[in-house]
């Protein structure tokens, strides 16, 4: 499921925290206000039709800087694209590049799920 969090309100933070805290979810966090990120998110969303897969696009800078997901980014800047993929235990399984194909993203989800 795709979540686009473009506000730093309580709802967005709740969505983020529930997703990250779920023992059976695989979460792909995405941040970066750069050209091409939207396309990446679309491809990632296509690969997340399984209900246990979440794609969360943190569009608001505050969420990137200060939220449950902030710790998974290497840079707090929204200028930089990052897409860490978190396993069932919220560990970073891999970090996807922005040009990752749909196949590569889907494969990354599977790898994360298999590494239970």
């Amino acid at each position, binding site marked *: 499921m795709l979540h686009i969090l473009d506000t730093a309100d309580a709802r967005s933070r709740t969505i983020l925290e529930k997703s990250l805290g779920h023992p*059976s979810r695989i979460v792909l966090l995405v941040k970066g206000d750069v050209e091409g990120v939207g396309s990446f998110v679309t491809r990632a969303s296509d690969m997340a039709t399984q209900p246990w897969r979440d794609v969360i696009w943190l569009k608001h800078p505050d969420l990137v800087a200060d939220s449950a997901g902030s710790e998974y980014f290497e840079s707090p800047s929204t200028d930089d694209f990052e897409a860490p993929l978190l396993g069932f235990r919220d560990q970073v399984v891999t970090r996807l590049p922005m040009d990752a194909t749909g196949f590569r993203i889907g494969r990354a989800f599977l790898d994360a799920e298999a590494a239970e």
Partner: protein
Amino acid sequence: MNPHGRVLASLAGLLAGCGGGASPPPQEIHPVSFVERQEDGGERSFVAEGGRRVEVDLNSLLEIRVDENRLAERIDSGSPASPTVPTGLQDRVDALGAALDATEEAEALEASAFRSWAADPRSARSAIAAYARVTTAILDPFEEAVEARMPGASSGAREAELDRILGSGLAGGPRGGIQWGVVRDALAGELSLLGAVMDTLREVPRPGIQIRAYYLGSRTSEGLPLPLAGYNDEPVGERSVVEKVVLAVSEEERQLYDAYGRLAVQVGAKSSAGAALREVLEAEFDQRRAALQELAEAAEGLVRSAAGDLEALRGLLDGRVNDLLNEMVEALKASEAGRRTESLVMGFLDPGAGIIDFSLLQGFSDLSQTLPGQSPAGALSTLLHLLDRVGRIPSASTLRGDVWEAHLDSLRALAASVRDLEGPVRNELTRLIGTELGGLPSPVLEEAVQRFLRAAAPVRGWLDDLAGRRGTLLLSDLPEPRGQRTIPLASQADTELDLQRLPPTRTAAEDVLVRFTLLSGDEVVDGGWTDRLRLKAFGWSARTVASLAFIRRSGRSTYVPTPVLSWVARYRPWPGSGGKEIPLSFGLSTATLDFSEEKEVELGLAATVGILDDWALLGYGWNLQETTERGFFFFSIRFLTGPGGLAGS
């Protein structure tokens, strides 16, 4: 028993000694067979592999029939192992196959994960992980296969290819989750691509066959490549039919006769034929002394054993042949089988049948007034001319195929009956010889013949080789036929070899080699094999032959070497006709004699029996210029076999 009985017994011994032989082994199913189409319209099939020399008529057409399927099997079994598919490639194929098989399990596990999630999302992790592990195991070989078939491509290009093929499959289907149909198509597609690659690697070269045929004539030491339709571009020679019954003295035999004359002068008179023979041969072949010694001793034994019996040939020439035949009939009558056969035998012996009329031999003694003064060659020419003109003797009428054909059935029946009679007749003859003559040389002669044949076998082949008649040819030395081609076994590989297109000078006892080479693509699978065909003249044939004879005048003990010119005829039943071959030839010989110091030229004329394809001749005859003690016996060996052979050395 009178002397005729002894002759009969001797000939029976000769026949028993020469006519035997083990039955050919049953023919195996073979990829190549021959069909011989004979000039008389008959045909027979045979296979020749294994070095066994098969006799074919020198006027026949040989069809070479190739069993393409059987030969292809042989090529397969003889081929080196099929090209090995690289291990990595095979592994990829195996892994993709396993992945394809695993999609059903993955699909089921995915459904299970969905159900588990629906039941309790927080407890679905294990089910999700199980589904994911199987699915990643499916995708791993797919990725490896794509990567392997794109060597040198950038990672971006490979990723794009993976996404093109399977990106949509991993994206959600109608109910969410992977589109397994797309995954299966993707895996099958990669398998198909790999299969095509493997087919290329595994492609077995087309099996094919090369056939080469060579004529090994007696006049050359080289093999002459022969045209084979489809297989080569050798020029097709003019068709010629070899006349089998020759009533003339060939120039070649005249030359040999002269060569034997020169040898005879060198040898001089000897105390025995064996001693004379040994001297002649040893002078030529000092290295083979032991073998020649054995042959000479065997020849001496044969001469000694045969001399007494051959004296009885006089009986044939004295017109008493009917007594001899009647005696044989009486012997036949003594057995049950003989009684059944009597009518057949009597019919066969009926002079009106015109098959064998020995009394006609008597007529030759009348020529004593015309032959003296001629050379042996001239005398023989005169005789043959007369034979041809008056159509007499084992002769014109009996040499005609239609006459023989008319009596073929009765002859076959007779032959069968004679076979049945063999035991009773032998017993009867043995009894007669034992009781009336106290044991006679028939068994001794038979043993002598056997010993001579054994001794002659190795020496004869060796002499033939040295004489250049069948020089040892290495197969590798045979020239390559022009335009030699490989015929794929997928197509018609039969061909034919027309022996009538061999050189018109071809003769019996020459060979044709047919060499078969099996190929897989351009590679020779194995050495193939070579079939050896021996040219023969089947049916009636007659020819003149020259030989070096050792002549012993009746009542004397010394042997005088003398060239002899003989005309001998024989009948060889066509193979497969059921006829029994008598391995003897019969005819006449002429020789220059020197019985009297007063007479300048003395001519001898002798009835002659040839054995071993006339390689050895035995005869008894008369000096046409003498009135007393005119008989003589001779034994000869025809060891100079061609103008290019020892006669010229």
